[in-house]
């Protein structure tokens, strides 16, 4: 029988000397006992866990040493979370761990798998320890199970959130790469657009262009849409807005490369073409831009 010190709730049973009575310990006390057991048997339980991980063929992307190192941190964080019930620290650890192992190719099912394995290993050790006292075992499990489930949840969610963050970051990078704003002369920017423009990409394009105008102090921008097959109403409006917003920053926009289909779309929609400066192709657009900027391009000799 564990000795209680001060203020735990008594179930109401009377104590008789020499008779062992079932007392209900406070949950926090059970948890303390549990944590103490897990700490005492740390080495052995951790080893058991690593064996199970290898048997189940999880974390194959990592070396034995790496698995051991991570297993140690996870085990300690796990026990600490059980003890303190401070799940923010565990969440932060889970995200940190995910940040490190995702690039190594570790999958979600592996992370969830190893946490559940640890849960099993620890549970088995509890079964072994309290096998003679079924009622106590139940109480210990009452304290252990909710906490263990919450831990598994926290780690899994942390991992998935980190993955989603990486995906978003990559998508952003891809989008930026696909719409470069290029300076070809002082005060002259070119924005070559290729592929499908959806409203989100159109918006991102506009923001990038406006930032580029300010950074490069551009006075003329040539937006070339030769590589754009089709445009719907929303995107056409976006284009007009881009032209208008650029003007507010003191830059003139020349749109080049409108395909017959897009020209048709714009006319059908009723876009005020007076607002848009268009030229047939990119070459023509650059030539006009140079004129606007006061350049005169002269051929001095034949190509060598």
């Amino acid at each position, binding site marked *: 029988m564990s000795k209680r010190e001060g203020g735990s709730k008594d179930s109401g049973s009377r104590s008789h000397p020499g008779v062992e009575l079932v007392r209900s310990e406070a949950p926090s006390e059970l948890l303390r006992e549990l944590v103490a057991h897990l700490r005492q048997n740390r080495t052995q339980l951790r080893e058991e866990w690593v064996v199970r991980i290898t048997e189940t063929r999880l974390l194959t992307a990592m070396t034995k040493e790496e698995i051991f190192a991570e297993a140690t941190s996870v085990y300690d964080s796990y026990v600490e979370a059980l003890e303190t019930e401070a799940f923010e620290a565990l969440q932060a650890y889970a995200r940190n761990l995910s940040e490190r192992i995702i690039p190594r190719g570790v999958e979600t099912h592996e992370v969830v798998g190893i946490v559940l394995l640890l849960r099993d290993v620890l549970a088995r050790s509890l079964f072994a320890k309290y096998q003679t006292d079924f009622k106590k075992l139940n109480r210990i499990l009452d304290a252990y199970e909710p906490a263990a489930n919450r831990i598994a949840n926290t780690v899994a969610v942390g991992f998935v959130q980190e993955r989603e963050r990486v995906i978003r970051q990559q998508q952003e990078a891809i989008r930026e790469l696909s719409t470069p704003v290029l300076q070809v002369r002082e005060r002259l920017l070119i924005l070559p657009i290729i592929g499908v423009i959806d409203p989100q990409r159109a918006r991102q394009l506009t*923001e990038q262009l406006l930032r580029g105008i300010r950074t490069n102090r551009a*006075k003329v921008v040539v937006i070339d849409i030769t590589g754009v097959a089709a445009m719907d109403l929303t995107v056409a409006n976006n284009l007009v807005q881009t032209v208008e917003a650029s003007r507010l*920053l003191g830059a003139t926009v020349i749109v080049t490369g409108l395909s017959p289909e897009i020209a048709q779309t714009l006319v059908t929609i009723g876009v005020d073409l007076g607002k848009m400066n268009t030229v047939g192709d990119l070459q023509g657009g650059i030539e006009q831009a140079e004129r606007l900027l006061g350049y005169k391009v002269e051929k001095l000799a034949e190509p060598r």
Partner: protein
Amino acid sequence: MEVPILKQGAVLIATFQAALSDADLNHLRMGLVQQVVKFRSRAVIVDVTAMDVMDSFASRTLREIAHMIRLRGAETVIVGIQPEVAFAMVQLGLTLEGVATALDLEEGLAYLTQKFKNTD
């Protein structure tokens, strides 16, 4: 809120502060035109670099200021509209049509110098 108006030769430069109330804007509309008359200015540059929002009232006021000043034979140039503000404005359909714009004070002055050279 007092908006500082500086004189640079024949050009007046008004620097708008961040949060101008409707009353401030109304006050300004009168004030700027009076200054143009007093100094016989040929142009006004309104610097809105510090404004991080531009609502329809502010936008309309700027256009009215430009119109009133044009009636005195002077030009108005709005400078310093931030990319985010420009984006928000065009989405609301506030295009400041008919009013000259430039990237910043330097560009605004360059524009006016060019314009005066052409018309003198």
